């Protein structure tokens, strides 16, 4: 699927946040150039990796000009606080419309999903919620 660059994207806001966070890390660690940024992407938020990569490539400048962004998706895992059952996103039946809402605010999963075993909404998203920066490599 090609990218429709005129289509407004939530991914751009997150890319902006990544650039800002990495710049601050570079400053704090006294890095003069960033070579590699290791990102973990929670499956639950269903970020479009291609759009995120494109947004990052458009925004990177200065110390980040040559940075490579390694993006790894982490499977979403849930654990029920009532019956301790654990399950994955694949085990959940979520309508397409609801997926879009979860894309924006993953916690709204609590409004739409239940533990597949006991039906409780009291579950934790134990893995794969959102994106985070696992490591930043650079030259001092």
């Amino acid at each position, binding site marked *: 699927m090609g990218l429709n660059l005129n289509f*407004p*994207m*939530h991914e*751009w*806001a*997150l890319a*902006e*946040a*990544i650039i*800002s*966070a*990495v710049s*601050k*890390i570079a400053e704090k660690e006294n890095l003069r150039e960033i070579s590699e940024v290791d990102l973990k992407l929670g499956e639950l938020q269903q970020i479009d990796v291609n759009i995120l990569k494109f947004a990052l490539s458009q925004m990177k400048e200065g110390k980040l000009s040559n940075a490579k962004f390694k993006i790894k998706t982490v499977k979403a895992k849930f654990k029920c606080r009532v019956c301790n059952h654990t399950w994955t996103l694949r085990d959940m039946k979520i309508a397409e419309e609801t997926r879009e*809402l979860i894309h*924006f*605010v*993953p*916690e*709204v999963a*609590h*409004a*739409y999903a239940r533990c597949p075993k006991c039906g409780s*909404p*009291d579950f*934790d*998203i134990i893995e794969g*919620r*959102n*994106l*985070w*920066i*696992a490591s*930043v490599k650079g030259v001092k």
Partner: protein
Amino acid sequence: MHDPRISIIEERLRDINKVVVVASGKGGVGKSLIASMLALALSKKGFKTGLFDIDFTSPTTHIVLGVSNLQPKEDKGIIPPEIHGIKYMSLVFYIAEKAAPLRGSDLSNVLIELLAVTRWGKLDFLIIDMPPGISDLLLDVLKYVDEACFLVVTTPSKMAFETVRRLLTLLNDLEANVLGVIENMRIRESSYIEDEVKLLGKRFLGAIHFDEEIEDALGDVNTLLKTKFMKELEEIIEKNQGIFH
């Protein structure tokens, strides 16, 4: 491990002149009504105003403003829709009428997410409607919203003020900026709240009397603007110009 969302919050709030956090600690004192009416009053005066409902499990400001058939737009983030000239954001856009049973860490995540992706643009005022409680979201607002100014709401009840006193003491200990206290739903003349607020060294902004007509006006902004409630709130704004202007 680093959550990149936190790095962008300051940038997202940069063009907002004043963030007014309507808080109480106690539930049922009229925070959401005051937050919504304050947003309407400031907007009416020509100020660019936003309203952010962070009572994520029990949002109600959309009821006051009569929000329906509105959705945020996506443009490199989320652009809050405008209603009655107010830029408006609430989790209600994502949960509709469903219950969202969220624990503390989930509430924090929702706040961080929405602070990180919502593009408010240039505003004179962003009004934040807090949930009741002196817990996660209050601590998160103190942590992530650097320039937060607290507008504290109480009723004349000693029971309400018991919690409000705790909140004011905490805010004082943390050297947070407290604009002052509004006494809402006054039913008989008494200086109890005013005296107590002054004893704590805080500013008593004024009282709003119990308005029997407000319930029927909810959702109808033209009627809300003509209520006794709004008149008294506008008087408080006028009387405390240094705070709201």
